[in-house]
């Protein structure tokens, strides 16, 4: 019997306590950020869309190797000694033409592992998060600054130079064939010029 009335009492009082809490909140200002009108100031370390500053990129491929999901693909062509690619902002000399620098942002897992190894700090995460798309293909970002024609030209140049070089090398190798067992026998026409300079 005691329990019976205790139940009634507890039931009513706890309901009123709860109602009191919600009633108080009815008049508290909302915490909502009205997104398209008001935008939150994002912290400086914010990790969102990747951006590559191609002016600084030396094509070292470190980011692609650090990426756990392999969403960065880089292809480079060696420049000719005559080409001047300029320097990066922290004084490194560029020696490679970037013919492909694609980031499949749809695969990216925003872990920032690619940012740390970059020697020139040219790849970094920005605070841009508004980049949804109607088509998935649009999420494949290409950062290459060269036009396709230029890329073809650079490749061509490199192949020519390589051919010359290998011809020279072959000649040199023929000279000291007894010492060195063909240090580089790769056929430049068949091989994709994928250099992994560190």
């Amino acid at each position: 019997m005691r329990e019976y009335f205790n139940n009634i009492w507890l039931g009513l009082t706890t309901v009123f306590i709860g109602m009191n809490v919600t009633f108080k909140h009815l008049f508290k200002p909302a915490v909502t950020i009205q997104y398209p009108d008001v935008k939150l100031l994002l912290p400086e370390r914010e990790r969102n869309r990747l951006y590559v500053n191609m002016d600084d990129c030396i094509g070292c491929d470190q980011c692609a190797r650090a990426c756990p999901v392999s969403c960065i693909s880089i292809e480079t062509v060696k420049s000719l000694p005559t080409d001047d690619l300029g320097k990066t902002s922290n004084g490194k000399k560029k020696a490679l033409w970037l013919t492909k620098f694609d980031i499949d942002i749809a695969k990216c897992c925003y872990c920032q592992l690619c940012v740390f190894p970059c020697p020139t700090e040219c790849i970094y995460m920005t605070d841009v998060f508004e980049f949804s798309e109607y088509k998935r293909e649009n999420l494949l970002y290409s950062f290459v600054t060269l036009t396709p024609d230029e890329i073809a030209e650079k490749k061509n140049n490199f192949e020519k130079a390589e051919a010359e070089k290998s011809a020279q090398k072959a000649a040199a190798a023929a000279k000291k064939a007894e010492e060195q067992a063909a240090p580089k026998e790769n056929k430049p026409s068949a091989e994709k010029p994928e250099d992994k300079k560190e």
Partner: protein
Amino acid sequence: MIYDFLLKLTGSEIAAGFIQSLLPLFVFILPFALIAVLLERKVSAHMQDRLGPMRVGYHGIFQTVADILKLMQKEDIVTDNSDKALFNIAPVLVFTGSYAAFAAIPFSGAFIGSNIDLGLFFIVAVSGLVVAGILMAGWASNNKYTLLGAMRSAAQVISYEIPTILVIITIVMITGTLNLYTLSELQTGHFWNWMIFGGPSTGLIKVAFIPFMIIGFVIIYISTLAEVNRTPFDIPEAESELVSGYHTEYSGMKFAMFFLAEYANMFAVSAIVAAVFFGGYQSPFGYLGNSLGISWFIPIEQFFWFTFKGIFFVLVQMWLRWTLPRLRVDQLMALCWKYLIPIAFVNLLIVGLITVL
């Protein structure tokens, strides 16, 4: 009375009755539902430190309009396994059941759909139609969730009818009438004439009534809450258990009908509580129309007060909904059979004793 006015205007009783029957629907229920759905979202949002609909019109006032228009565009799915005839009839029955209750509700001194003497009793009885509709919907969908939801719903609604009726009998014992119009007229004057304050009786008896009236009010409020399946009694459509209960399989306009019926029901029960305990359409302070001498203004004021009281109780329903967890089905039954009914019984006996003394 608007009916008499319409009768004069059209000259045909059927036409007058028809127009009158449309009035609550278009003048009241549809606007009310539009407002109430928005209100529900706004109230819940502000209780949860949110804002609620903001983007459709100023502070989202057209949100419900958009919802209805969208629901009209939605495909209507009738699954292969369902009992198609019953599936289609169910929403009609549910809406009819809840709308019929409005026939006997006095919105103001000048408007009551049907001034039958059985008023209160009729409302309780006709809400049985809703149960039939719900059972039909649950059964016809041929879905386990809907069936369980419908079963629970039926068990719940019929169980909670008993405490409701018992409290109504308590009122009838004091006032001797079931007619809601008469009941409202009895409570005229100021708010101390309301039934919750002992009604029109005077003296010591009036004071003695007050605690029992309050108990009666709490009981009827809880049980009407259960009858319209609102939290904490929303187990039939318990989202986290039975997906969305008996209307899981309904889409598009038929679902909208269930939705509309639910909100209509919410107001109907609030109106009953207001009419029985809080003076119906009577103003708590006397009428502006009286003091200004504009007699035609009084019904409008009355309508305002009635709506105000109704919406107030609807708001309390929402308040409860966004505060409380829901009960389990056996606890719900236990609450009804072990707590509400015995207390209502005792209450009835005591009130009867006071009246005869």
